[in-house]
């Protein structure tokens, strides 16, 4: 098992074949779709979908997301869908760049860090994975309750387990997929899923991430 600080590092290891499979974000999957295969996608509340949240400090009088103009904003990771791409695409749809809309923005390289940054007041608002925010609300309510949701995005493909396309025929990948998909039927597997607050893993078509691909395109077109 290998952990890295940034999405970019994990994606590089995966694409280069140094690791066989990784739990990555939908955004790098879309970016390296040609080199990657989907192994399985987590299912949350019965669907392999999640949302991106724009959050701010609890109790702040905010009507809609446009009131976040001029904030210091915390992003998660430049290769994160929910923690960067969704907000960037939202701004692109409104003909704006993050540096124009926010007074300052920075990356915390972790969804939990985004919540910490907003809760502490280091940033006035942040872009965070909705799944992480909801799970942390159960685990660390004292931290998460110091933030509130300003905007929820549309439902998007849940960060999948992906493998390098070059290993498509590798039996270990198939075994991994089977293990993941059958996890909900296994006692030990259910313990893991309960810890992750997930229902199980599903085999999903690549089209699940088309909405993310569309956001990438929106951003690309706006520049």
């Amino acid at each position, binding site marked *: 098992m290998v952990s890295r600080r940034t999405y970019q590092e994990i994606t590089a290891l995966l694409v280069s074949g140094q690791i066989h499979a990784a739990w990555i974000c939908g955004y790098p999957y879309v970016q390296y779709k040609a080199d990657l295969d989907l192994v399985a996608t987590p299912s949350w509340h019965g669907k392999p979908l999640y949302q991106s949240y724009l959050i701010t400090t609890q109790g702040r009088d905010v009507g809609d997301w446009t009131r976040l103009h001029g904030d*210091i904003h*915390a992003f998660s990771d430049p290769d994160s869908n929910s923690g960067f791409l969704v907000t960037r695409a939202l701004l692109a749809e409104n003909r704006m760049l993050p540096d124009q809309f926010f*007074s*300052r923005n*920075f*990356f*915390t*390289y972790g969804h939990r*860090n985004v919540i*910490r*940054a907003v809760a*502490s*007041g*280091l*940033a006035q608002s942040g872009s965070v994975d909705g799944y992480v925010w909801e799970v942390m609300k159960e685990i660390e309510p004292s931290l998460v309750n110091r933030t509130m949701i300003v905007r929820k995005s549309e439902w998007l493909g849940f960060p999948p387990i992906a493998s390098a396309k070059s290993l498509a025929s590798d039996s270990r990948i198939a075994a991994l997929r089977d293990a993941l998909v059958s996890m909900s039927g296994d006692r030990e597997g259910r313990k893991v899923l309960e810890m992750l607050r997930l229902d199980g893993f599903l085999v999903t078509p690549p089209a699940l991430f088309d909405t993310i691909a569309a956001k990438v395109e929106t951003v690309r077109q706006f520049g």
Partner: protein
Amino acid sequence: MNPFRRWQSIPVSFRVPAIVAILMVVITAAISERVLDRLSRIQESYLNGLAGTYLDGLSSSILPAVLRGDVWEVFDALDRSSTVYEALAPIETVVTGSDDRVLAASDPGKIETYSVLPAEYSARYGPGNVTIDGQRLTGFAHRELIYQGQHIGTIHATFDVSHLFAERREVLITLLVTNGIVAVLFAFGGFLLVRRMVGPIRVLENHMRSAAQGVAEPISANEIPRGDGEVASLFHGYNALVHAERERANFAMQLAEEEKLASLGRLASGMAHEINNPLGGLFNAIDTLKEHGQTPGVRETSIRLIERGLAGIRDVVEAALATYRPERSQHPLTAEDLEDVGLLIRPELRRKMQRLEWDVVWRSSKELPIRGGLVRQALLNLLLNATAATPEGGQVSFSATSTERMLTIDIGDEGPGMPPDIAGILLDRDPGPAVRAGRGLGLWMVRRVIDDLGGTIKIGEKSTGGTAITLLLPLEWEDQKANAA
């Protein structure tokens, strides 16, 4: 009363404990000052070390993040360090970039990221590593972040130092309470010790006071401490003094009695002689009367002789009665009083074959307003002294003159002169040791009489040798008393 005298008037059994307590307070103050000063230095050194460690650790962990301008990494490091360095109790840490704008603060709600650091932060540091603000109970320290010789930012740290002050206060209270208890114990101990030491002195004082009032009692054996040699020695010394004084007093009484008896004996023998002298003549006259009583001329001559002889005896007896009967001492002085004195001294003069030079200038008034009995006693004593001092065949002089306000009497002898201690009985304020030794009791009686009469005594030397005693006795006429009243 000035404070020094007031202080001296406090009993020593209170003064010594008070001095002990004051000394303890002074010592306590000095020790407390030294201890607190030392503690303060140790605490500052400790705080400097902790702050240095904190800033070293923090600067090495945030240096790359500051170099990148990574707000989150700096904040994350500050956030983690707040729990790691609990001993230092950091209240607030602010990291600024090279442009002095805030990169991150431990409390972003108070100091906003990217804001300009308030000027007070830069102005609050003193010369040392850690600057302590005693009023706000906080300490300040800062550390420049240098990368390859370039200033890339600064760490500004604020610590809670209230525990240091609380520790100092606790130490101070402990010192005060401990030393206070010790001071009270020492003072109480001093009080008991001094009382114990002063106790025997009190016993001695009480005995001496009693002695001053005339009852000199030795200290009883059960009051003499057995263990304390010095006090026991003092008490034994006092007892020896009391015994010696008693013996001396007894001796003096005995001497006085003897003197009195001797004086009376001399007077009595004088008087007997004075009575005996005419007795021979009287018996002769009686024999003459027996044989020739029928002869008228002889009988009358014999009866006159008997009358004169009996009158002489009567004069002597009356003079003695007038002198030694107390109820007669209050009458005013008359010329007869002086003549009686001359009469009473005559046998003694005759015995020693001495002459009396008598010179009395009496005023026209018969009586002088002064108690005659007392004057007679004093003059008789002085004349007896004069005859005793004058050799056989010598001369004793007596002169009396009176003015309106003063009776002056001079008595002279031809003796070798009065010894100073005996003269002191007449002249000095304190009759001195001579009286206590039982000497000069006659003169002491003279002194008391003259004092009683409000007079004064002078002693001089006569040009022809011998001593001259002058008595100056004030006269108080009734009109003077009325005027004075």
